[in-house]
């Protein structure tokens, strides 16, 4: 697996940054000739994880890049914050569980939109979400 040189880093502190991050994801999907549907799924997933950074993480960043594997490419999204972390990850991945003002669909919803989804979190250190959308060339 080799990394494509182009990666985009978007610092996330405000709700305007959420919009910027999802638009960047859509642009990247369109450059990769993804379908309009895939571009929308990706942008929506980015919007959810970026909002978590603003709402719970006290700021952080979203990094987008293209990952190549044999015959396939993925758009990889790494969303990280240095917030309080998530004490109960399995609970945070359940539909309807929310400590913010959302619907509690952020993380589980983003997982359903993407092909791969991993979340790691350490209390007092922060939370990182890595998710990928794979497409054959």
């Amino acid at each position, binding site marked *: 697996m080799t990394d494509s040189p182009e990666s985009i880093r978007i610092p996330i502190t405000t*709700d305007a940054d959420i919009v910027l991050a999802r638009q960047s994801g859509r642009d990247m999907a369109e450059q990769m000739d993804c379908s309009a549907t895939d571009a*929308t799924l990706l942008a*929506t997933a980015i919007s959810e994880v970026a909002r978590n950074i603003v709402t719970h993480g006290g700021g952080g960043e979203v990094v987008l890049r293209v990952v190549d594997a044999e015959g396939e490419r993925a758009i990889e999204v790494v969303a990280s914050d240095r917030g309080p972390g998530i004490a109960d990850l399995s609970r945070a991945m359940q539909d309807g569980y929310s400590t913010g003002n*959302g619907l509690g*669909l952020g993380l*589980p919803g*983003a997982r359903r*939109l993407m092909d791969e989804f991993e979340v790691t979190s350490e209390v007092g250190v922060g939370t990182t979400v890595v998710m990928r959308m794979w497409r054959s060339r």
Partner: protein
Amino acid sequence: MAVPILKQGDYLIATIQSAMTDSEAVRLRDDLMRQIGVYRSRGVIVDITTLDVMDSFAARSLRTIAHMTQLRGADTVVVGMQPEVAFAMVQLGLDFEDVHTALDLEEGLAFLDVGTGG
């Protein structure tokens, strides 16, 4: 940038842009609530034709708007959802079952005309 709201007879028409932020969604709610009182509006159309991402916050905001306008005596209908956005909403687990929707502005106006006898 605030979401533009147009007064059209008994109705208010709000046209959401693709880059709507969370705070603009909250402001739209407050602006609509105020203008319903000022103009004594009986219906609200929220046009999301150009909205390219409906995430959980935006969906929650629109549902709240629909419920609040109803309590103020005005029906709200959300129009123009793109097929990709509808697909993403279903995947995300969001629904609008308690929100009126219509294909486009024309259908939305027809819906309100039936409901208000206008």
